[in-house]
């Protein structure tokens, strides 16, 4: 994993027992993971009793380095040996590596989900609603007398939701459902490969 100089320096300070004793190390590791997972930025995240004696500027540097390292590891899906050798090079003791790695394993899935949700993509459909109606007449034509469906696809794009509305006849709805079923069949086939 490639890490910038400031991240390496911050991690080295974190590894140093004279800057961070055992309990403050554990606390900083926990706090770093927690601050990534919480939905709102908490300015008081570093206000832990165990961290009070540490120089506040150093504390912030180490916190930044730790969170950057965590995100990089999750992004690259780094395995135990990669993380271990990386931290070893940065003078982490075997014990501290173990503490870091087990906390990483605890939160990895959640962090992965968070990272995966970042980024642009087409609107995601999450639901559909429908109405069956009978078209009797309109301003231009009398005696239409045809049933039709009003379909509303509920979709979401980067937090904002959008409804895509359209009408269709029964034949068209059968066509649509048929195509969706073909798609589902191909998903099933692909999952068996």
């Amino acid at each position, binding site marked *: 994993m490639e890490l910038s100089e400031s991240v390496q320096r911050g991690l080295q300070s974190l590894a140093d027992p004279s800057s961070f004793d055992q309990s403050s190390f554990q606390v900083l590791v926990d706090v770093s993971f927690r601050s990534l997972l919480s939905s709102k930025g908490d300015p008081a995240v570093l206000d832990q009793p165990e961290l009070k004696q540490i120089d506040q500027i150093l504390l912030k540097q180490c916190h930044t380095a730790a969170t950057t390292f965590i995100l990089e590891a*999750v*992004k*690259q*899906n780094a395995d135990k040996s990669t993380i271990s050798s990386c931290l070893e090079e940065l003078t982490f003791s075997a014990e501290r590596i173990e503490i870091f790695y087990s906390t990483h394993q605890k939160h990895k899935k959640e962090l*992965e989900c968070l*990272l*995966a949700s*970042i*980024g642009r*993509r*087409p*609107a*995601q*459909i*999450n*639901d*559909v*609603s*429908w109405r*069956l109606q*009978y078209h*009797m007449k*309109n*301003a*231009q*034509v*009398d*005696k*239409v*007398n045809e*049933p039709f*469906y*009003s*379909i509303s*696809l509920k*979709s979401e794009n980067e937090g904002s939701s959008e409804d*895509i*509305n*359209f*009408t*269709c006849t*029964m034949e*068209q*709805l*059968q*066509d*649509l*459902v048929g*195509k*969706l*079923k*073909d*798609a*589902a069949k*191909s*998903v099933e086939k*692909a*999952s068996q490969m």
Partner: protein
Amino acid sequence: MIGLLSGCRLFRMLLVLSEDHKEHLAFLPKVEPAVVREFGRIALEFIRRGASPKIYEGAARKLGVPVEMVQHGVEGLMFLMTESSKHMISEVDFLDSVLVLGFGEELNQILLQLYLQHHSQIRSILSQLPSNLPAYHSLEWRLDVQLASRSVREQVIPMLTMHLLLTKGSDSISRVLQTDPRTLLHLISTLEAALASMKTSHARRILRNIK
């Protein structure tokens, strides 16, 4: 429009022609039947493609009459045809409606033939008009597996990308959408329930009785 409902079977639909309308059509008995047929052809062309003033000028010159007279005659024919087609009036009702114009038998028959030959075409043109609701046209789909993104490098995420085409009047709307396999199954079961709702006894009763 007057529709007289007597009993549940007999339904007469007579067109009520306004005075202006009658005045416009009053031009027709004054010209040869061949000219009326030509005006009918022009009226239908205009219903199909829109009016073109040059044609009025040409015809007015040939007949030696003012342009307005030709225009009114053609427009009157257009309106007669569209209103009759809109309400799908029967042959008998059509003849009774034009009786009030006091035309001769030959002219009435020409108008009737014009109506009978073209009313379904006119109806389908009219029914394309009120499309301010987007309507389904087609759906294309493909199955992709996302392997990486800017924020995560090793992924295996199956996703269904769909291209939905809708028509709205003469425009088309195109949307690219995605969904995951589970939501896809949910969409399928919901829409199958929608299709099934057409077959219930309630729906069948309504469809049978409103004609």
